[in-house]
């Protein structure tokens, strides 16, 4: 079929006992932004880590199914090989190197790239072009920068590895709505101008669906719904359960109808 990134019916088990993903399948077409939505513990992060192969460092394992990137099976690779192959994850909660300066953080991102000094400088300039704020803060220790700046540093650091695809985990976490908007604008920019594909795990369904092309909704380790972003946005169930809206205004959770629907939804 010649798909780009495709996950086929994977099961993930942590510590040999805890079943977290129960047969997840999804596709990310080249050059698109795909959103992975769902509540806490639905398995979004686990899905991303299965792709980037960070899972094994946490005693997690893909026990069934497979993951293909550009028609190559990648679920037994190391994170280092994945980054070299063009897939990089930006972890939830930023994870900047607190004691390194912003610029040093960015430079570490180029670790896997055999680049000359001049090329390195050019990559830095490119990142600063997308994140002018980082240029101002380039010599501050990352630990002392704001949450938004740290998120930018984390994304910028990933960019330094020249990725084709970024697995972006919860970029909106703990940030003011305005900053979230700013970061998503940059994501869209990167997608359009640098042709970077994104798989985006988000709890902030509203924002994610505005910027994504396609969306999957995970619940309890399963994909319960998928569709074009605008279809999902106008879907009644999504509206009610994830966007907090419904046709009849806000509803009480006591309503039986709601309860039944919710039950059917999770079954």
């Amino acid at each position: 079929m010649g798909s780009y990134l495709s996950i086929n019916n994977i099961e993930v088990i942590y510590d040999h006992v805890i079943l977290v993903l129960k047969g997840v399948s999804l596709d990310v077409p080249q050059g698109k932004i795909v959103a992975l939505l769902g509540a806490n513990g639905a398995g979004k992060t686990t899905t991303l880590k299965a792709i980037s192969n960070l899972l094994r460092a946490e005693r997690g394992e893909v026990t069934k199914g497979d993951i293909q990137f550009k028609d190559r099976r990648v679920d037994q690779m190391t994170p280092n090989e994945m980054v070299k192959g063009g897939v990089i994850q930006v972890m939830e909660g930023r994870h900047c190197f607190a004691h390194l300066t912003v610029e040093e953080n960015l430079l570490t991102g180029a670790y896997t790239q055999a680049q000359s000094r001049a090329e390195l400088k050019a990559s830095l300039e490119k990142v600063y072009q997308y994140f002018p704020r980082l240029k101002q803060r380039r010599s501050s220790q990352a630990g002392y920068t704001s949450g938004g700046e740290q998120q930018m540093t984390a994304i910028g650091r990933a960019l330094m590895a020249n990725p084709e695809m970024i697995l972006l985990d919860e970029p909106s976490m703990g940030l003011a709505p305005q900053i979230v908007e700013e970061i998503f604008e940059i994501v869209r920019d990167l997608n359009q101008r640098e042709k970077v594909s994104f798989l985006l795990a988000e709890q902030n369904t509203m924002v994610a669906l505005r910027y994504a092309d396609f969306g999957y909704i995970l619940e309890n380790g399963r994909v319960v719904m998928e569709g074009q972003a605008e279809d999902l946005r106008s879907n009644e169930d999504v509206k009610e359960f994830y966007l907090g809206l419904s046709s009849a205004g806000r509803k009480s959770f006591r309503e039986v109808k709601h309860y039944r629907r919710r039950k059917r939804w999770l079954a």
Partner: protein
Amino acid sequence: MQFFFEVLIGGLLSGVMYSLVALGFVLIFKASGVFNFAQGAMVFFAALSLVGFMEHGAPLWLAFILAFVVMTLFGIATEKFVLRKMVNQPPIALFMATIGLSFFIDGFAPLLWGNEVRALDIGLVDEPIPWILDNWNMVISKFDLFAAGLALALVALLALFFQYTRIGRALRAVADDHQAALSIGIPLQHIWALVWAVAGFVALVAGMLWGSRNGVQFALTFTALKALPVLILGGFTSVPGAIVGGLIIGASEKLAEIYIPPVMAGWFGGNFGGIEGWFPYVMALLFLLVRPEGLFGEKHIDRV
């Protein structure tokens, strides 16, 4: 006054030797956030290997290279069989692992090389430098001066390496956040093996200098623990801190040894020798109360 300076300089020079051991701790702590209790044992093992190869007829340079190879292999083995299994475990678990490692080395090294005390001759004699003796009337040991010079060069080299090279940056990144480092494609395994090899190299230089001064023996393991107060003063994460801490500890313990006992004896009577042995630890304790991250250590950054 001359005597005072003689003691001071002697102390500073011997302090540099502590720095050298402290440096090994700093390297591993910086790169993996692990306090490597086995560093002292590594110094012992390195010195023992060096002597062992020399006893088999190898010249010093060859024995040094062979001992370095042994330490590198040891570093790789440690990474492969101990550290790799323990990624993402709490630091205390890793610390316990290094304690185990330390006792393993202490037992294993003599098995390999025999356990008698041995002299190590690296062609340097512990005698005063005539020129200084003539002009200033001070006894400054040639050996101490050479050792200090070597240690300083090594420290400067490592500091530059950490600050400005790609690998150095990666090492610091790994120290800050294993997982994030992994996520951007830094191969932890290589980095750890590398840093253990470098720490092995530092241990070898320290072992060579300490060993040729005091003889190569089991007690080296404990001499090396003198590096602890140095680390507390200088900071666990700072290469320059290791050197400054070493200087402070070296100078103050020698001065304390000379000048405190007479005073104490005047007050209380009795004999107050051997202050050198515990004075650094008291200093470290006091220092911990005032500045727990050390003079040059990294402050823990917490966002609130």
